[in-house]
């Protein structure tokens, strides 16, 4: 992977020195969850600021390696969200995603990942409120679990 050299140059995480805040990376689809998150914003719904969103065209584009890469890059939790099953903008992308993650879950767990840190969900473009509630819930859960030190220790 071409990014490996870059990661080596990055400094070690410094969160433990400061007051730790959860760092959550969310992979969302452009049409439902991203629009839902946008709606949460335009509806002025306040929610936890610790989720960073990576927009992809469809949940079907979300490669399982993104999730591992996110943890490798210091995420304490990863969210994956797309359109509700049957509502995919691209007809069937979320079904492919669902099937892929169903298999990948077990693999991650086998590798020793704490599956409480990986959250799969469906949020539609109309569900701004649901997105806000989901983020609050996930942030609360990650806060409880604390920083994801195990993986980073392995990397170090």
């Amino acid at each position, binding site marked *: 992977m071409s990014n490996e050299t870059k990661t080596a140059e990055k400094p070690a995480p410094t969160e433990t020195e400061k007051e730790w805040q959860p760092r959550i990376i969310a992979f969302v689809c452009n049409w439902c969850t991203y629009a839902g998150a946008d709606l949460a914003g335009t509806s002025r719904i306040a929610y936890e600021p610790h989720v*960073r969103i990576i927009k992809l065209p*469809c949940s079907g584009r979300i490669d399982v390696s993104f999730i591992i890469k996110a943890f490798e890059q210091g995420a304490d939790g990863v969210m994956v969200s797309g359109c509700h099953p049957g509502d995919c903008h691209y007809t*069937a992308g979320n079904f492919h995603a669902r099937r892929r993650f169903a298999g990948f879950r077990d693999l991650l767990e086998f590798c020793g990942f704490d599956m409480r840190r990986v959250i799969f969900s469906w949020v539609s473009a109309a569900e701004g409120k649901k997105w806000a509630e989901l983020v609050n819930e996930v942030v609360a859960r990650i806060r409880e679990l604390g920083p994801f030190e195990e993986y980073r220790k392995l990397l170090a």
Partner: protein
Amino acid sequence: MDKLIIDGIEVEPDPSKTVLEVARELGIHIPTLCYHPALPPYGSCRLCVVEAIWKGKSTLRTACTFPAWEGEVRTNSEPVKRARRLILELMLVEAPASPEIQELAKEYGVETSRFKIIDEKKRHNRCIQCGLCVRICQDVMKVGSLGFKNRGFQREVTTPFEELSDVCATCGACEYVCPTNAISLDTITQRKPIPIPSEFEAGLGYRTPIYVPFPQAVPNTPVIDRERCPKLLRDKCGVCEKVCTRDAIDYQMQDEIIEAEVGAIVVATGYDLYNIGKEQPNELWKGYGEYNYDAYKDVIDGIQFERLLSASGPTQGEVRRPSDGKEPKSVVFIACVGSRDPEKGLEYCSKICCMYVAKHAMLYKHKVHDGQPYVFYMDIRAGGKNYEEFVRRAIEEDGVLYIRGRVSKIYKDGDQLVVVGADTLSDSQVQIRADLVVLATAMVPHKNAYEFAQKIGIACGSEGFYAEAHPKLRPVETMTAGIYLAGACQAPKDIPDAVAQASAAASKVQLLFSSDELEREPIVAKVNEETCVHCRNCILVCPYSAIDDKEIRDKQGNLIKMVAEVNEGMCMGCGTCVAACPSKSVQLAGFNDEQVFAEILALGHG
């Protein structure tokens, strides 16, 4: 002389035809009783007699059996008229009770017969023993439940052993062909014919196995109902083929799959009506058992009432209720049956019902002046140009009584129906005795909508109607490039809306076709042919069938390898193929792995 001259008109002789057939083609009328184009000529009624000058002699011949040889034929000469008069005189004593024969006799100036009725039993006879019924039953319908008994004066048509037939198929061909209405199914069999309900008349009228689907059908061509046609089912009948003068009937015709390459598709597959009864096509929907739609004949839906109002409908436009044909003096219309009722599984407004209920109530009042229409409604949603005025007219000018509330129950009392409902404006319960109840049923997605969407790769919304690309800004396009929507397949809508959307879709297609190059979003997938191993994962997962196999050949034309290839015109850029590719040989422009990893990197540390 090598021509055939019929009443002075010269034609080519054709011995494969009869004089009758040639004369009819020329538009010359020859009266017949025992002739039917579906049967071979029989020559029993003798009425088609014509004068043939054959080999120099004048002879009288029956036109239905006489071949169209060269010579001269006179169909209405004095000897012919004289012969016909005699035949009719004989028929008048054979079938004295037949008005058809009397009518014909009058036409030829025969008032009374010189002959006497010897058998008093014959006084009520209508049968002229032309044998059409026997022959059609035996030779065409291949049933044989009719025959002749006795000879001479005693000859008559009857069933074998004069018992009610148990082989009769109740096809009714005998009744249909009888020129004097002398035969009736009741005298042949105990069985009752089962009529075929007409789809277009919403079950209120009947049709034949060969029928034109509806009056304004385009093309206006009859179709054969494969499940009912006796020719296709049992190789019987075949009358339509014999009577068709254009040889247009082909029983061997099969359904065809027509393959066509197109640049755009407009989906206009329409809607279905919500099924009021208890049976529902899916478990999410519930029916209205309390309205007894299936149990009471006089509880009908809007489409059925529409047919009752139509001048070309089963009642010729007279409002008559289905149960006993009486004119209903009190009609209750119930709006929102199924629509706006989350309890029944349909939350949306069907949009068209408010207007057609007002129209129905108004038309009913115009046809039945002393009748009273009632409408139970939730809200009157008459948004649209002149719509509100129309509803006001129904209420104010035509005296339609609008009651705001729902109906809880319909039950039978005598020959009337009692409609129990609420009037929420006066906060009271109301009971209305009605002769007819019309339910304005919801519009639901077509029953095959989902299957079809899967087939052509478009999406259904949560209610099952097809999803447009953007509810406000791209309302006629689907997310799949080149596929457009028109009409009620996208959402419930009325005719002006459907026409507007269809026009918009047509314009979009023209826009697409008018440019030399196809403009697309730049986010499309691309295959790295060097690393692709042709595992075909991407081809299988692509929801748009945008990826295909590609052969790579060297200059000599030898096949080097197979790879996948993305059709950039069809790719919508979802990226499902990218995630599915095990060798990472497909990348999505704008969202390739490197770009996404860079994003993750940026969000990670720091």
